């Protein structure tokens, strides 16, 4: 064992799960072993809970380098905004700057523009109108671990998502400052992270020019009122409301306006989904047209009760959770106790904006026996969560109705 990163608790938990020896009580067991690991509901279940990452509190360790850190699900019961220090983290390449000097940092804008720019952070913070937006940031592969049959990739449970109030400037204002030339087709973004291997494809993503100039896409310098944690993209991160996080480029330091298509690897060949409803195909199905992942779809979760919780039979129990509409707002949230035959409307909480998590609550009084509590969100476009989980080779865009298994007695 040469683990250094997770500190004593992580080391103990790893040794425990690896079977090097089993910790059962006694002096070797740390006092709160249950808090140093978590079992996710798929194989292999065990993950360390780590506090070893800078500016981060306890996170589910999916991978140390490059970091993949999942938000422990109980965090989502505490409010609709996810604390910065427990906001999930996902990096593609391992060369991540660990020192950012705010005085020397520059954001460059080049390509098909009248005036290439090199902006300081001061130019951006003080020189352009400030905007704010509450928006969910969700990994394309959130919930991949539940895919059946399983697919390779980060084996996330449901915590590769978060909601924040982002503060920054409109991408449109930055592009206008540079003056986009006629004929521009796409705007490509890249950050300070680099591949370990020189000829590997640098992480870059692009948006269609009209999307980039829609006045909603932002360059954020703050989340939840504070500067971004380094691992969430300090000092600047693209915010693409309603779209999956692969487009929310972190540590963004270059913007390139293209007068043609973006054929680079991460835009053209990665993060592709089947061009079918719900990105759903049969396992192994071939010959399907693949397209870049794009708008998010609605999801909803119970946060106040966990699988296996016990309820008092016949007694009223308040349940609550969070929902989001994906590319638009939440129209309704419903719950079902009979596998989806009858649905009961939940009460929606405060509206923080159409791209935000929204709290919901309801009351149940189940009879004695096993209880399967389902929750379903329908968004403002009328798109409802499907009952069955989709399948595609990337494990992307999961949003089936969730079921919490309870017992009433």
């Amino acid at each position, binding site marked *: 064992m*040469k*683990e250094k*990163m997770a500190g004593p608790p992580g080391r103990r938990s790893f040794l425990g799960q690896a079977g090097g020896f089993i910790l059962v009580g006694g002096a070797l067991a740390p006092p709160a072993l249950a808090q140093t690991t978590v079992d996710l509901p798929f*194989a*292999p279940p065990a993950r360390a809970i780590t506090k070893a*990452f*800078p*500016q981060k509190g306890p996170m589910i*360790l*999916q*991978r*140390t*380098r490059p970091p993949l850190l999942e938000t422990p699900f109980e965090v989502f019961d*505490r*409010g*609709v*905004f*996810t*604390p910065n220090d427990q906001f999930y983290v996902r990096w593609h390449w*391992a060369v*991540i700057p*660990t*020192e*950012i*000097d*705010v*005085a020397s940092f520059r954001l460059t804008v080049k390509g098909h523009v009248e005036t290439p720019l090199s902006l300081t*952070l001061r130019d951006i*913070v*003080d020189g352009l*109108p*400030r*905007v*704010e*937006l509450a928006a969910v940031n969700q990994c394309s592969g959130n919930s991949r671990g539940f895919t059946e049959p*399983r697919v*390779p990739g980060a*084996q996330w449970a449901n915590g590769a998502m978060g909601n924040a*109030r982002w*503060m920054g400037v409109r991408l449109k204002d930055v592009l206008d400052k540079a003056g986009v030339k006629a004929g521009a087709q796409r705007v490509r973004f890249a950050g300070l992270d680099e591949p*370990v*291997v020189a*000829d*590997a*494809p640098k992480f870059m993503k692009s948006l269609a020019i009209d999307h980039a100039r829609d006045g*909603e896409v*932002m360059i954020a*310098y*703050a989340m*939840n009122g504070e*500067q971004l944690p*380094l691992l969430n993209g*300090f*000092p600047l991160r693209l915010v693409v409301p309603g779209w999956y996080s692969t487009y929310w480029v972190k540590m963004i330091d270059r913007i390139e306006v293209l007068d043609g298509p973006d054929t680079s*690897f991460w835009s053209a060949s990665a993060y592709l989904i089947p061009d079918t409803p719900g990105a759903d195909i049969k396992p192994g199905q071939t010959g399907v047209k693949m397209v870049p992942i794009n708008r998010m779809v609605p999801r909803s979760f119970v946060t106040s009760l966990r699988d296996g919780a016990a309820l008092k039979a016949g007694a009223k129990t308040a349940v609550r959770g969070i929902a989001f509409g994906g590319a638009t707002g939440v129209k309704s949230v419903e719950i079902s106790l009979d596998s989806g035959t009858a649905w009961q409307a939940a009460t929606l909480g*405060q509206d*923080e*904006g*159409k*791209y935000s998590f929204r709290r919901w609550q309801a009351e149940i009084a189940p009879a004695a026996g096993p209880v399967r509590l389902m929750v379903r969100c329908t968004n403002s476009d009328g798109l409802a969560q499907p009952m069955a989980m989709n399948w595609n080779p990337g494990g992307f865009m999961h949003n089936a109705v969730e079921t919490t298994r309870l017992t009433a007695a």
Partner: protein
Amino acid sequence: MINGTQVGFGAALLAAVILAAIGPPGTQATAPPPGPVVAVSPNAPRTFTLTSVSVELPTGDVAFPGPANTQAIAANCLSCHSAGMVLTQPDFPRAVWAGEVDKMIHTFKAPVAPADVAAIVDYLQATRGTK
């Protein structure tokens, strides 16, 4: 003088209102109603201060466990990602693992010694292979 004081007070009050609206994480339930989807903040404090950051990222990781031979996978794979990438995966058929190694080499340009490819797939099959 009076004007100056009032302006200063006004700015401080606005700052307080905005901070209350944003709120520290975890106290959002009591925040006042928000503005429209994209709210321009013309009355926000003139500046938002960003502070330089210097951190250390964890570099160590768990080693690939035995009993299968770890020599090839440890020598070729750990420069780009830690062992957790593999150890959190479910069991896959050998063909899936061979495909993953191929993707690392050809798509992500991992400089894997050709002579080590079979040994890496052997390790993956032994450790996370469909039995």
